[in-house]
C-alpha cells in the first residue's frame, strides 16, 4: 500500500493523521501520538485500575483462602491495565494539538529578541 492510500485509509477509520506522521514506506509499525489530555487520562486510568484490581485480588484470595488466586487475579489485572493504558489508542488523542504548517510559518516570521545586558546585584 502506498503511503498516501495508507494515510487516507487511516483517516477514514478515525485515526488522526497529520503531516507529522510522515513515514518511510518500509516502516513496519505505525507511530501515533497521545495528546496531553490523553496522557493525563492514561495515567489516571492506570492508577485507578491497578488499585481496584489489587483490592479485588486481595479480597478474592482471602475469601477463597487461596494465595494463588490472589496472585492470578492481580496478574490478570496488571496485564489488562497495560493493554489499555500503554499503547497509543485513538481515544487518547481526542484533543490533538495542531502544529502550524511550515509554509504558513514562513509568512509570519518570529519576532527578533533584543539582547539587553543585565547586571546581577550582589547582596551583602
Amino acid at each position, binding site marked *: 500500500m502506498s503511503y498516501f492510500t495508507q494515510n487516507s485509509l487511516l483517516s477514514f477509520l478515525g485515526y488522526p493523521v497529520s503531516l507529522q506522521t510522515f513515514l518511510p514506506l518500509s516502516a513496519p509499525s505505525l507511530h501515533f501520538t497521545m495528546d496531553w489530555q490523553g496522557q493525563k487520562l492514561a495515567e489516571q486510568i*492506570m492508577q485507578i485500575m*491497578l488499585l481496584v484490581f489489587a483490592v479485588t485480588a486481595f479480597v478474592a*484470595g482471602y475469601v*477463597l483462602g487461596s494465595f494463588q488466586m490472589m496472585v492470578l487475579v492481580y496478574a490478570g489485572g496488571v496485564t489488562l491495565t497495560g493493554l489499555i*493504558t500503554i499503547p497509543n489508542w485513538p481515544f487518547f488523542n481526542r484533543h490533538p494539538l495542531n502544529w502550524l504548517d511550515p509554509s504558513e510559518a514562513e509568512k509570519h516570521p518570529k519576532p527578533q529578541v533584543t539582547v539587553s545586558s543585565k547586571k546581577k546585584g550582589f547582596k551583602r
Partner: protein
Amino acid sequence: MHSFGYRLNGLLTFAVTILALMCAITSLSDNFNTPSPSAEIKIMNINWFQKQPQGHDEVSLTMNVSADLQSLFTWNTKQVFIFVAAEYETRKNSLNQVSLWDAIIPAKEHAKFWIHTSNKYRFVDQGNNLRGKKFNLTLHWHVMPKTGKMFADKIVLTGYSLPEEYR
C-alpha cells in the same frame, strides 16, 4: 506519561509496589488466626542405652508421635516444620536440647497425623549424665508463610525418664 517506554516503566513500578503492599497485608492477616494445636508423644521402647567410646551417653528410643496441627494453617502458609526435642538439665548445663526427629508438613490435610518411629537423630549427651535422667519432650513448630513473618511455638510434654542402668 509521555512515551510507550515511560508508561510501561510507570505501570510496572506501581504494580510491583502495590504487590509488595498486598504481601504485607497478607502477612498481617495471619495474626487474626488463633491456632489450637494438640500433640501426644509416647515412648514405646528404649532400644539401647550405652556409653560411647568417647565417654558420652547415647540412647536410642522408639516413640509414637501423634498430633493435630491443622489449626496452624492459613491461606498464607507454605509449610509447617516440626521437630521433637528432648530437654533436660545437667550439672554442667541448665538446659540441654537434643533434636530427635523432624518433619515438614506441606499441607493442611497432612497436619493431623501419627507416626511410629525411632529417633531420626542421635540422642547423645555431653558427658554421661543420662542414667535415670528425667526429661521433657517438646514438639516445636515453625509456620513458614508464603509471604511475610514466620511464627514459631511449642508444646512441652513432661514426665519422661531414662533407665537407671545401661542396657
